[in-house]
């Protein structure tokens, strides 16, 4: 009897101690947060993850926000989220704006985690040069993310630390647009110091990509001289050129000399944005359709020139072909092309009254498209010509909306006179769950 009791107790003790072990389960496809960035391998994985986050919002959502909202692309599908964007009647829970906003902050959180953890990683396999590269890329990604938030939503809440708990979020109010852009500038400055010099790479950040984004930032802030200066630094780099014919840059295998930064997709990491552009007879959904206006312009040899390669089909089913890898879904996300730098410099020079220089840059872009060169013109007309050139050159890239908002011309061009609607609404979820956020006016 005594023995039985002893055995029972021993068994009970054993089962209780092994119970803890029995109840410990770990996933085979995710890392515990504590082990996320601890050595060379995980540091590299983390920066890949940050690029992946940028891919996620740039594959379809962000370019959609920059196109269907303006006049080159119209709604042709069934999903209300696109109808709302097309009509510029965007509720706070519009799926595309919410997904983009969410995706951008995910990228920021990844970047913040890297910026916080990678400097402390002690691993002989992770050289200082590689650490710098990873950190610089993270700073760039954070800069790009805040820039994209700023131009879409205005000044946003600035998070610079990885989120470890929700208490630490409290008390962060929305910044002004200037403050958001200041943060972008600070991060770009750090990034420029840290990322490697340009080599052949076009799908990871090197110095020129940082400078190009900086040129764009200065343009948005109307800092014309800086914009021109940084644009020049990129234009003068022989790594980049305006490719011929125009369609080369959006034709596989991509990564043409046109590209300052593009995010590469592959058959294992697919971008099926084409699906929204192609008609169902070709396997797409045809939600995004070139507007009659842009079709006319692109088909006009004096306006579109070889940029008519952006269109295919005929009659009622003309569709856009910028995203065209319907068999493989490997279209890149186009972030910065060299053509943009020419047009940035053209605009900056025009604003600085260097009209000859401006026309020269503008005509570089026109010449490549095979359309007649423009003679020198007055400043205002020249600026309008640059605006028009931007519209045609980047017909289906997410430029048009942001350009018209930036220049204050959205009312005149799009008829959207209520300037409240020039910013997207802060997601409904944030308004409900975040006492520190304020909604944009008019929503």
């Amino acid at each position, binding site marked *: 009897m005594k023995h*039985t009791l002893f055995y029972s107790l021993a068994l009970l003790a054993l089962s209780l101690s092994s119970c803890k072990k*029995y*109840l*410990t*389960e770990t*996933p085979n*496809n*995710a890392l*515990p*947060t504590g082990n996320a960035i601890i050595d060379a391998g995980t540091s590299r*994985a*983390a920066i*890949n*993850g*940050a*690029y*992946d*986050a940028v891919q996620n919002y740039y594959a379809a959502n962000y370019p959609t926000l920059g196109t269907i909202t303006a006049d080159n692309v119209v709604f042709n*599908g*069934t999903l*209300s989220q696109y*109808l*709302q964007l097309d009509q510029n*009647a965007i*509720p706070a*829970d519009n799926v595309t704006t*919410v997904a983009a906003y969410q995706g951008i*902050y*995910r990228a920021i*959180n990844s970047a*913040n*985690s890297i910026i916080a953890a990678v400097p402390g990683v002690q691993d002989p396999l992770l050289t200082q040069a590689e650490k710098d590269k990873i950190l610089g890329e993270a700073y760039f990604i954070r800069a790009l993310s805040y820039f994209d938030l700023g131009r879409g939503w205005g000044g*946003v*809440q600035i*998070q610079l630390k*990885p*989120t470890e*708990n*929700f208490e630490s*979020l409290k008390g*962060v109010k929305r910044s002004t647009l200037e403050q958001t852009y200041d943060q972008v500038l600070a991060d770009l400055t750090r990034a420029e110091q840290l990322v490697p010099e340009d080599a052949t790479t076009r*799908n*990871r950040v090197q110095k020129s990509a940082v400078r190009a984004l900086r040129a764009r930032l200065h343009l948005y802030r109307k800092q014309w001289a800086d914009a021109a200066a940084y644009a020049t630094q990129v234009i003068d780099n022989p790594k980049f050129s305006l490719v011929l014919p125009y369609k080369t840059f959006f034709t596989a295998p991509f990564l043409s000399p046109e590209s300052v930064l593009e995010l*590469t997709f*592959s*058959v*294992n990491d697919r971008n099926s944005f084409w*699906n929204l552009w192609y008609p*169902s*007879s070709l*396997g*797409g959904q045809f939600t995004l359709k070139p507007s009659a206006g842009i079709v006319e312009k692109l088909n006009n040899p004096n306006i579109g020139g070889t940029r008519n390669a952006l269109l295919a089909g005929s009659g009622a089913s003309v569709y856009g072909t910028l995203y065209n890898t*319907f*068999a*493989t879904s490997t279209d890149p996300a186009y972030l910065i092309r060299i053509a943009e730098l020419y047009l940035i410099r053209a605009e900056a020079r025009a604003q600085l009254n260097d009209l000859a220089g401006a026309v020269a840059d503008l005509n570089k872009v026109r010449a490549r498209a095979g359309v007649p060169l423009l003679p020198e013109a007055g400043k205002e007309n020249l600026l309008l010509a640059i605006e028009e050139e931007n519209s045609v050159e980047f017909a289906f890239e997410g430029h048009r909306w942001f350009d018209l908002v930036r220049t204050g011309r959205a009312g005149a061009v799009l008829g959207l006179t209520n300037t409240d609607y020039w910013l997207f609404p802060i997601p*409904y*979820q944030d308004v*409900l*769950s975040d006492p520190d*956020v304020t909604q944009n006016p008019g929503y």
Partner: protein
Amino acid sequence: MYHLSSRLLLFSLLLLLQVFAVAQQNVGLSGKVTDAATKQPLAGATVHIRGTTHQVVTNADGQFFFQTGQRLPVTYDISYVGYQPIQLRATTAQVEVSLQSNSGQLGDVIVTGYSTQNRKFISGSIVSVSGNALKDIPAAGVNQLLQGKATGVQVIANSGVPGGGVTFRIRGNNSINASVDPLYIVDGVFISNTDPIQTGLGNQQQSNPIADINPADIESIQVLKDANATAIYGSLGANGVVIITTKRGRLNAKAKISFNTYQGWSQPINKFKVTTGPQTALLTNESRINTAIDNGLPPGSVVLPFPNPDTLPTYDRFSGLFRTARTSNYELSAQGGTENSTYYVGLGYFKQESVVRPSQFERLSARLNYDNYLTRQLKVGTSINLARTQRNLSGSDNNPQGVINSALFPRSYLPIFNPNGTYARYGSFDNHLALIENLNNDAVGWRTIGNLYAEYTFLPGLKLKSSWSIDNTSEYENNYNNTLISAGIATNGSAASYETKNLVLTNEQVLTYIKSFGKGRKHNINALVGNTLNTVLSQNTTATGFGFASNDLTAVSVAATRSGSSSRAESKLVSFFGKASYTFDNKYTFDGSLRADASSKFGVNNQWGYFPSGGVTWRASQEPFIQNLNLFDELKFRASAGLSGNQNGIGSYAAQGLWASGANYLEQPGTAPSQLANPNLTWESTRQVDVGVEFAVLKNRLNVVLDFYDKYTYDLLLNVPVPNRSGFASYLQNYGAVRNKGTELAINTVNVETKDFRWTTDFNISWNRNRIEKLASDIAQGASGRNISILKQGYPVNSFQLYRQLYVDAQTGNAVYEDVNKDGGITSADRQIVGNALPNYTGGLTNNLSYKGFDFNFFWYFQQGNKIMNMNDFFLVHGGTQANIGFVPRQLERWQKPGDVTDIPRLTTSSLNPSVNGGPANNYGGNVANLSSRYLRDGSFLRLKTISLGYNLPTGVVQKARFSSARVYVQATNLLTFTNYNGLDPEVSSQSSNQNTAGYDWATVPQPKTIQAGINISF
């Protein structure tokens, strides 16, 4: 071990002594047990001589026989499942006894958590449904068949797709993010109710995992509803428990072989209608002109898209979409037993086509239930269910590339075929015929539900049962999109192959003690203790391929581009439990239970949960003062309270801080933060109080069961939305509370009972009121990001948040909405809750009539008060805003000229000034964008679910054919529906893969209306 073997020896010796004793005395007592109503012998009834250990079972002729030393008179206790037990004082050696069958529910011995108990003494709220009430209904899932049959249970088939998902709620929605489905137990096996199908069907729940069980094998179902009944299942019990008991043989019963079959033919209860070509053109022209006026252009400047609307043709897409669908069912079973073993073997084949081409469901099932008394003390047995299901899936019905959308949405003047004979496609939509002829989504599931047990009786009343169970679901899906359908055109064919495994392993030990003692056996104890170990494993491997040389090549392996992925999640649960019930003098019962559960899903700080319950029962009918009333045959009051828990429906690793892998870039591995740790995460708890009364009057002709309950679920496992600037969308926390309160009433009557004619009625009705008591912030979701469904404190779950359309201005024709915040404009702040998808009450009415050999029964189901969002109207009453979509006839009711009174506003696509209330922009677009109460409809309905007429062939004929019985019948299902709902079918929930987005009707297969003929034969 030593003790065990010595005890075994002792028992063996006792057994031997008994045999000697029998041999010495050799006195015979015998009798025959029959059914009081049919006079048929009852095989397998248990006969026990009071005051002895002697117990025998009647043979196939209902005969029993004792060799005993007992002297007359003796008292027999005779019992038989489904009949009222009887005590008989026998003064002669030969007796004949007839047993009354339990017409109502009040007398049965029923299966409860880990034990069987007499219903009389149970303080929990449990409803039993006999397998007979469910057979021969042409629907695959047992859970679906419980619709309208049990109080407190709300069942809706989400669509008319055979084998498709079912919404099944016991006493309302307890949770928001954790599961709201009950625990299903089949013969003691905890089975998985996780949908194994990966192929998308819009947002519909793809399949009903319970459809793997053949309803014909089922003996009975108990639904455990209140805390006292479910607390013994602890963390698995909060949503109620459905215990399915399958048929087993009886000792000493001659083999009974049964063959059943039926054949059915189905049509949809309703078909889609769209406007004709000329009507569509007319509406389009009108919209174009109105838009020009709204935009300040002269109407004369408009170039009409259709100068001559009348000349347009109309193409009918629905005749090709619907079909007369066939259903076939065959069942063959054998049931019986020898002196120390029993068996049930069943085989079934069921095939059902969908009324919308091309889906279908097929099930082949086999069951073996076997028990063997190895010795008087040791019983071993097994229950094994094997099923193979095969589905032709029609993916993504509510997506532009789904079959129904492709038929419903394109404009009716557009031809189905191009002039060259190829399939024509418009806008986003595929061609429905191309899909019907080419869809190739094949899902084959293998399901094994098996249990092995051994039960050892130490002493009379003291038993130890150990059981080992497995539920293994293995689903293998192979999909191929060829180049003739939209999904395969771009990639030159695409294929996907999914292998999914859901495994549930359970081991349990239960020690039961049942004892009566004291003077006159007034004290009765029923107690048990036990433990379980439970493991749940889900695994999936997916391979996809693109680019095929030919449409005849469909294997992923030969695709030009291939990729794969996999997932795995495992969780474990350790439990200890005990319960005890004490009954005094057949009058008062007190019971209590306690369960302790530890789950691997929860944070290290809070793994254990404790779930107590208690209840009392008072059988007032045993009191002399009630007996003196001579009114009640049974009168029982019961009350219970307790806690149960919930951990289902959250991820296996939900408490851990994680970085997800797979965030790759440039073919290099990547990781990214995916989940914040919550080490305090713990059980969601449900506190429930239930009071009930049960009575039977008029010689048990009228039985009534009435229950009131109040269920409060707190510490909800809630995905609390967090600010997006955190980099996370939500955080799983224990936060929030939901309350369900309700009343349930069941009335069973025997209206007429004569020698030839019997008429019984079963009526039940359940009211449930759901309310979210506490929530961090509103959670809006549903309808592909339109966020029509909202969870909001103070309102029920499944509420709809919409702009309320007040009226259409008779002068301007523009819709006017309620300006909730009175700021003069219409913005998203003006959305409000305008109803919810939960019914106020549901119920059923069954009438069974039999006259001589004929039987006739009909069953009505009803529900009242739920709202349905008619998404088909939402899309097809669009005022012209959808250039590629046609119209439904409701659009013709639009406002046309001043003075028109209608709820459909003037056609226009103008988007100017969307915040102006009563302006044209919000008619169909603008800020309102159709998200208005205009498309929300009352979903109440009354439906004649089944009506059947059967005939039992006369005994003479049957015996001549060497059958023991034969019945032929005809039956109709879903024959009549009364409803104000304007869609095809009010029994619908198209977005059911998320429990919080109920009540949508969106390109969904309607219920079939079925006529069937069948035959049941026994040998």
